[in-house]
């Protein structure tokens, strides 16, 4: 069953169409990665599903309901979103950031209930950021900070997490740190996750479903084995690449060696 799906959405900025007649479904309890070259509409698709952007036509469905008809706060209780490169207020501590995840569950009179306290403690612990909960975010490493943001989204206690390039600007170890965390959340808590990723090999290794976008359309969607093919890499990214299979888990891994259609 799909938690979140789009039905024939079209999105355009002024004259240029970014998404065209796009229908995709995010299966419940699975990790989905959206891949594609720069400007193919990955982040726009994620933003539309997160209700941060409003598609021109078509609709996004969350738990069988049209997301545009749901109250903002209701959406925030079901969908956690981590935008790309979020702004870090100076001096804000990890604990204060993670506590902000409780915002949709709070009101002026209900500012800090027991369930808020429990959810924040749990989010800090699961993501392993409790060791620096009282340090300012701007003093943390990139990987620690990204985990703190994920902890904020987890404190929101939503069934689904949407993440826009959660590993960009992180070094290898920190990328692994973030992806392993998402894999563990999925395995142990059944967390549904949808992310935009630039690193195809990580996408193939960590997701159940991959969606390859090309010029605002779905080029291919399915398991990593179905999507990660030398055909797709040629058509979507314009590169010639060999596909290997990871001896540890059998996931397809690509090694590009030449640009297509260029002689030099």
């Amino acid at each position: 069953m799909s938690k979140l799906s789009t039905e024939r959405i079209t999105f355009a900025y002024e004259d240029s169409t970014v998404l065209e007649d796009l229908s995709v479904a995010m299966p419940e309890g699975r990790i989905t990665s959206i891949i594609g070259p720069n400007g193919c509409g990955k982040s726009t698709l994620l933003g539309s599903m997160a209700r941060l952007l409003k598609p021109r036509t078509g609709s996004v469905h969350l738990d069988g309901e049209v997301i545009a008809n749901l109250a903002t706060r209701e959406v925030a209780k079901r969908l956690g979103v981590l935008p790309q490169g979020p702004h870090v207020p100076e001096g804000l501590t990890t604990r204060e950031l993670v506590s902000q995840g409780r915002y949709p569950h709070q009101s002026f009179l209900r500012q800090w209930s027991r369930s808020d306290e429990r959810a924040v403690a749990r989010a800090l612990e699961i993501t392993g950021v409790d060791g620096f909960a009282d340090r300012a975010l701007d003093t943390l490493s990139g990987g620690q900070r990204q985990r703190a943001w994920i902890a904020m989204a987890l404190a929101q206690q939503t069934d689904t997490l949407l993440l826009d390039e959660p590993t960009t600007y992180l070094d290898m170890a920190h990328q692994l740190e973030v992806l392993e965390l998402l894999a563990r959340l999925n395995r142990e808590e059944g967390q549904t996750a949808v992310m935009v990723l630039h690193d195809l090999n990580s996408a193939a290794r960590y997701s159940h479903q991959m969606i390859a976008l090309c010029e605002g359309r779905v080029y291919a969607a399915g398991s990593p084995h179905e999507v990660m093919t030398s055909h797709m890499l040629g058509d979507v990214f314009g590169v010639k690449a060999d596909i290997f299979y990871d001896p540890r888990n059998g996931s397809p891994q690509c090694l590009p060696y030449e640009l297509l259609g260029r002689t030099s």
Partner: protein
Amino acid sequence: MARLAPIASRPKAREATLRAGPVSLRLNLRSVLIICVLSLAAFAGLVANVGYGEYPVSPVEVVRTLVGLGDDGGHAFVVNSLRLPRALVAVAVGAALGVSGVILQGLTRNDLAAPDIVGINAGASLAAVSLIVVAPAASIVYLQPAALAGAFLAAGLLYLLAWRRKGSPLRLVLVGIGLSAVAGAGATLLIAVGEIEQASVALVWLAGSVYGRGWDDFYSFTPWLLVFFPLALLLSRHLAAMNLGDNVARALGLPVEKVRGLLLLTSVGLAGTAVATAGTIGFVALMAPHIARHLVGPAYGGLIPAAAATGATIVVGADFVGRALFAPVELPAGIVTAVLGAPFFLYLLYRNRNG
């Protein structure tokens, strides 16, 4: 971004959680303590101001008279009728400016955005000067709405010229300084062509002073405060979420446009009424939020009251210094805050350039 040296790590906040049925509140005890100390400082400034003058009254006597405990020396008239309203206006104006600044800085995510830096105060004073010079017969009651209208007009222009296009923090400041200059020139022009009597009233008022403020000034100011202060506190939860960026705030379920409008209304409203009451007392709305943030951290629940208390302390202190420094000649409080605030602003600009 330019801020006072951020405190990299704060000890785990000692908190008190109050829960009763569906109601739950969280208090950071350190912030509560700091806000109490700041409020005491503002109160001490108020007592000093009331006691100081040609007819000195000892602090103990001031407090006794204020709480209505006897009146040994017969100074109730001096205290209650002459000096108290002025000191209260100073406290209230400072608090309004502090809260206005902290909201505007949070809203624009710009440390340099204070209503006086970005031209909102200048808009309010131009409107007020126009009223004083053009319609001298008009009642003082109209000064508040006129200044408010001027403040909102300036905010609207600023939004159109700088903010909407998401420019750099410096762009907002530069456009604001330009707006201030234009509004200032307009005010000067009005004073130059106006009748000498009205012009001198307008000039004193422009310098930013609580000189000669009485109970009627205080009472025409307080209703606005009673609207905007609670609104600011109600909105503090949303301001904290908004500070994480529009997209994160939206993802957390915050109706961003609506809340931004309310926050802007509150900030501009507080600045406009403060200017209507005491003229342009500059740099308070810039300094108070920075000092408060340094003391209680960036969580808005504590930050808004702390900025209010800091602003109150600054203005009441500046008024005292202005009265005492060259007595019997009085310096307007606005001159004192400018002497303090201008270097502070330059320091922030310098840090911003290098940060």
